């Protein structure tokens, strides 16, 4: 049995750790909150841009000429998946859940797949499992600006336009609330303005009332096709931005839960060890008393 001193030492160190995990939980909760607020702030732009996109895409002469980013290709030879994970661990099963889910998706889709890894954890796990990781972005800061993520959408748009890939997906963890989140894979390119349930970050355009939007008459400056050239890439950028923010909110919330659990476990451990320490102290006192009593008895004899 451990001595009282040893137990005391362990209790102190566990107390220190639980202070750290407790602080990390608080920080993560507020970071998750901030990421969530940041993605909510994109709603105004997303809704309106989507409405305009819808109108433009249904204009005669625009839909039929087919904007390359809106045209579904007949033969899908190669696909790309943007996998968004975190750079750091200590977030419970957040990273591995995302990777496992993406792996399942890639296997089910069963086409040659290029992985664009956003976040070190996902990159390392995918490389270890033998996937073709063609690009890695591991320097996305917390609370990113849109300029931090546009290189990602630029890369996949270029690959899509020059035919390297025929379909682009984005895999990220959808934030539901502080204690729940779920990994999802959504289509990024080609953009499907008439089938928005399958789009990435579709919840930010779900509030848009699309009835009558396609019949609305505008004058277009310069022309509907030119406008579409401006709107579509911006919308794609925005979807990637929203996905990254959702993923960050999820990562922080997962870390919050993990750290909360760790703090709870530490409290439990401290309770058990305190009990043991008291027992150890009591037994040492008892044996000391026995010694004294025994000594006294020997003397009086």
């Amino acid at each position, binding site marked *: 049995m451990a001595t009282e001193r040893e137990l005391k030492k362990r209790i102190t160190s566990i107390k220190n750790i639980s202070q750290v995990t407790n602080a990390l939980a608080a920080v993560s909760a507020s970071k998750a909150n901030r990421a969530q607020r940041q993605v909510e702030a994109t709603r105004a732009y997303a809704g*309106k841009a989507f*409405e305009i996109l819808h109108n433009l895409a249904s204009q005669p002469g625009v839909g039929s000429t087919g904007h390359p980013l809106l045209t579904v290709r007949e033969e899908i030879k190669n696909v790309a998946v943007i996998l968004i994970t975190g750079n750091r661990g200590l977030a419970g099963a957040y990273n591995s859940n995302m990777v496992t889910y993406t792996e399942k998706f890639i296997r089910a889709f069963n086409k040659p797949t290029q992985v664009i890894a956003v976040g070190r954890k996902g990159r390392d796990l995918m490389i270890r499992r033998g996937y073709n990781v063609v690009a890695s972005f591991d320097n996305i800061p917390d609370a990113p600006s849109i300029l931090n993520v546009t290189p990602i959408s630029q890369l996949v748009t270029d690959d899509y336009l020059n035919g390297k890939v025929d379909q682009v997906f984005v895999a990220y963890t959808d934030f539901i609330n502080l204690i729940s989140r779920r990994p999802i894979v959504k289509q990024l390119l080609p953009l499907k303005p008439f089938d928005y349930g399958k789009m990435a970050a579709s919840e930010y355009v779900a509030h848009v009332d699309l009835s009558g939007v396609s019949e609305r008459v505008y004058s277009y*400056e310069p022309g509907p096709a030119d406008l579409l050239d401006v709107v579509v890439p911006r919308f794609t950028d925005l979807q990637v931005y929203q996905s990254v923010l959702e993923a960050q909110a999820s990562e922080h919330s997962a870390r919050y839960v993990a750290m909360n659990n760790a703090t709870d476990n530490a409290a439990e451990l401290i309770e058990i060890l305190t009990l043991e320490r008291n027992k150890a102290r009591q037994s040492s006192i008892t044996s000391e008393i026995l010694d004294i009593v025994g000594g006294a008895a020997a003397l009086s004899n």
Partner: protein
Amino acid sequence: MAFRCDIVTQERTVFNGEVKSVSLPGSEGRMGILPNHSPLLTTLGFGEVIVRDAAGGEQYFAIGGGFAEVQPDHLIVLADSAEQAEEIDIERAEQARARAEQAMKEGVAKEDPDKYAQIQASLLRAQVRLDVGRKHSGRQRREMATGFSQPRDEDRS
């Protein structure tokens, strides 16, 4: 007679409110929007947006490209970047312009047309911010004169 005006970017809402008229840098030329304008979709250039509210007050914004939708009772500007004149940090804008000019001069970008366009755009953006900022913000200028300009969040981190 007033109409609603929103100026939003991908990241945030920069302005919303009831206004009397708005002047915009359309890609085909400057345009003034009054209530009951016919529906219009237009792309935007780099320049200044002037918003006049019902009380006769004016607000100024520097915007860098994007597009806008005009409805008889509603105008929404979806800008790539938008800043209110008072928010513009002239010192930072100056630095940004100097950087872009330097990159232009070095000429490395010319071999890569995309990069070249990007640098050109950032040069334009910086120029517009400077113009709008200088024209309208006395407060900012005083801060500069006394050398007490607050660092912005992103500089601090």
